[in-house]
């Protein structure tokens, strides 16, 4: 049976990678649209190859399609070449499976994985023919729902979404779908549905809330509008999967025809992180730390490879070394997949538990370099950010690696961390220099495979909501560049400068990301103005235009000094305070104070520090008590 295409051959032949738009991939799900009750379009607002690399999308796709009454399809941002054609020819954005317009769907779900994709959200709405503002939509428009890590501060997108889902998709999506079916049957209005949905735990309906501001621009109050005060909750509690082993897993992920950016099977071994690095949002919003069972993981791995034919499987987690059965799992996978030559790859290993044994099991690593993320150049600064590793750990790890035959090391650091001094910046170059020296001390001349190659990459620190650094200001782009210049000079002054390469990120993108991360409802206008000026694909350096953002801020009356470069007062209402992630604000304050005192907080496996995530009754919080 031939598939229909929303785009004609003339268009498809004129755009880059037309197979991004034609669907029909292995394991994509086709259903009869007349035999389902709910049509759900799941969107990753970036190009196909990026979106198809995302495990979360495959999880929701599987979850919803497991039900006979729902058909979940996929939609991505179209590339600018096709964007222009669709605008010129008035072609509505369509879903890949049915090739039907998004406007005909019941739901448009958009996953929010990084702030720089926010303009792409508007591109999707624009091409779909859905009004930007939820308040301008009619009952005939799809219900636009947002989720993912950026939904933990949904306010900069509040105008554009009918609702946000705060937490892990596995938990209350079915309840939401059941409620929608009921409403559709009884002929209730969209507003009735939104009010009812707001009572499902984890669902936030921004238009039911109002914000007032003080004269100094900070938030005066944030609460349900008076008419909904009796029905709508004041705080939204994040939803988490309590026992990972019993939840579903996408054993039949869609295999793209076009090569995805992460073109491999993904095995999510655990969620959350025990570490509590103070800059890391994922380390707090995904608490508590939960591990899937070894038996379940073995079963998933076998099925995924049989169903996809992938030649590589990658273990996914925030910190693989913290997995209690990592060695056993790797042994199993390597043995199981020997015949089909499936590679096993393992990102997110920690330097302090660096085990040559584990690394040498992972074939793929042999060919590439080792990556360490000390994040800061001095012990003082690593204590400030609670990155519990020492210079000794780094040196021990590197020494083992050198003796094991590696000679390429990548080091990740951040610049502009809270309280950073010149010494902390220069310390980064020292770490690299010491590793270079260690190589020449460790490896005898006749065993060296050429020079040691050390690459330092720095990103600029961006304070994120729900971290102990959420009150921190950012520096202006020129200050970041001065910091990068100082580090560059220091590297150049080292004896082994020829073995050390230094790259830094774009400072202008970083401050805009900071604005979008910590903004409130007043940022919506900035985003829509940037889009009106032709800005989207801002996550792509070649499409990002800093001046366009500054212009839009000016026109919207949004002051970067207020939102980005200001230290927020500890008692002000933060835009995301109405969301309860389990980890309490009290704990964040204590951690902030610990950072100022340079005190390291033990990780969850060593000792419970009472962050509050225990309220979910699962994971390490419970295991440690038993």
């Amino acid at each position: 049976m031939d598939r229909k295409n929303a785009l004609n051959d003339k268009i498809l032949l004129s755009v880059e990678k037309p197979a991004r738009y034609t669907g029909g991939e292995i394991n994509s799900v086709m259903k009869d649209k007349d035999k389902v009750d709910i049509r759900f379009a799941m969107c990753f607002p970036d190009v196909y190859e990026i979106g198809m690399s995302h495990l979360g999308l495959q999880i929701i796709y599987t979850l919803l399609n497991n039900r006979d009454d729902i058909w979940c399809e996929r939609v991505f941002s179209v590339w600018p070449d096709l964007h222009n054609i669709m605008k010129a020819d008035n072609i509505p954005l369509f879903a890949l499976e049915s090739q039907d317009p998004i406007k005909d769907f019941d739901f448009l779900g958009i996953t929010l994985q990084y702030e720089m994709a926010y303009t792409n959200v508007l591109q999707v709405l624009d091409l779909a023919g859905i009004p930007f503002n939820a308040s301008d939509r009619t009952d005939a428009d799809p219900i636009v729902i947002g989720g993912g890590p950026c939904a933990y501060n949904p306010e900069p997108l509040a105008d554009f979404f009918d609702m946000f889902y705060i937490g892990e998709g596995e938990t209350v999506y079915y309840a939401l779908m059941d409620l929608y079916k009921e409403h559709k049957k009884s002929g209730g209005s969209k507003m009735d549905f939104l009010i009812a949905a707001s009572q499902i735990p984890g669902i936030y309906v921004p238009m039911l809330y109002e914000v007032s501001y003080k004269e100094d621009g900070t938030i005066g109050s944030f609460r349900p509008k008076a008419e909904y005060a009796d029905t709508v909750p004041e705080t939204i509690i994040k939803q988490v999967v309590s026992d990972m082993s019993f939840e579903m897993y996408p054993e039949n992920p869609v295999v793209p025809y076009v090569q995805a950016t992460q073109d491999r099977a993904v095995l999510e071994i655990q969620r959350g992180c025990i570490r509590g690095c103070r800059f890391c949002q994922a380390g707090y919003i995904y608490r508590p730390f939960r591990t899937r069972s070894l038996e379940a993981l073995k079963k998933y791995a076998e099925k995924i490879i049989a169903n996809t034919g992938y030649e590589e499987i990658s273990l996914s987690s925030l910190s693989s070394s913290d997995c209690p059965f990592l060695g056993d799992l790797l042994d199993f996978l390597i043995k199981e997949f020997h015949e089909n030559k499936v590679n096993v790859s393992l990102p997110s290993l920690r330097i302090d538990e660096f085990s040559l044994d584990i690394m040498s099991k992972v074939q793929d690593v042999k060919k590439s370099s080792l990556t360490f993320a000390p994040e800061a150049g001095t012990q003082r600064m690593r204590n400030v950010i609670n990155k519990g590793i020492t210079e000794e750990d780094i040196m021990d790890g590197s020494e083992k690696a050198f003796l094991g035959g590696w000679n390429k090391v990548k080091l990740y650091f951040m610049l502009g961390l809270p309280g950073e001094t010149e010494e902390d910046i220069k310390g980064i170059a020292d770490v690299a220099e010491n590793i270079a020296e260690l190589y020449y001390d460790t490896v005898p001349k006749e065993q060296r495979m050429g020079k040691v190659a050390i690459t330092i990459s720095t990103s600029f620190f961006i304070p994120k909501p729900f971290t102990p650094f959420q009150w921190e200001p950012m520096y202006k782009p020129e200050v970041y560049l001065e910091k990068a210049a100082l580090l560059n000079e220091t590297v150049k002054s080292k004896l082994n400068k020829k073995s050390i390469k230094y790259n830094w990120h774009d400072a202008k993108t970083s401050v805009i990301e900071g604005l979008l991360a910590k903004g409130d409802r007043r940022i919506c206008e900035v985003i829509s103005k940037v889009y009106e000026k032709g800005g989207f694909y801002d996550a792509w350096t070649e499409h990002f235009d800093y001046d366009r953002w500054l212009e839009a801020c000016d026109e919207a009356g949004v002051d970067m000094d207020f939102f980005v470069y200001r230290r927020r007062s500890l008692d002000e209402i933060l835009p995301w305070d109405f969301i309860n992630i389990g980890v309490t604000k009290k704990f964040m304050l204590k951690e902030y104070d610990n950072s100022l005192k340079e005190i390291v907080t033990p990780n969850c496996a060593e000792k419970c520090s009472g962050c509050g995530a225990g309220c979910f009754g699962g994971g390490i919080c419970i295991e440690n008590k038993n």
Partner: protein
Amino acid sequence: MKIRIKFSKNDSVKFLGHLDIMRFFQRAFVRAGVKMLYSEGFNPHQKMSFAQPLGVGITSTGEYLDADVVDGQDLTEIKENLDKACQGGFDILSVKELPLGVPNAMSAVKYASYSADFNDNILPDLNGFMAQECILTNKKTKSGVKEIDIKPLIYKCELNGNTLHFIVSAGSENNIKPDLLLENLMSFLGLQYSRDMVKITRRDLLGDNFIPLSDL
């Protein structure tokens, strides 16, 4: 053993590029449970080779790939399982064991037969196109654009209703892409050629004496 697989490239996958198709089959073999032979070394990969890449947007009823598989597997089973693993994008038309000494698909290709369905009746006749003494064409090569006479490389060119059937030289030497012929023909007839006015299908790939690769 070496096997030769003949497959179709259907309309739903006609926009895939050659690299996409290679990757697709690599994974389809694993899904189908075909036991493959792998190359030695650090980065083992399946031993397979395709006869001839096909342009994006063109369907086919005669594509070929040769693969090295573990001995003793049932060919009918391979055909059925592989066909299932392709989920309709490609149909597996035949799977045959290659006798020792038969040249691989890539070097066996000499000719390709195509059909081009025109949307409308824009080609009433060929108007002596093939009666020309020579058919000079600019062909892009690695070293730049070269003027060549393609007439000796066209073995058949007939119009049947709205469909043009043609056989042209293919393979590593003197490969003629269908666009090259169609563009030239249209310009001879005083018409402007564009890819969307025609649906091109590769009917088959042929070896010496115009024998399909599956029958060599």
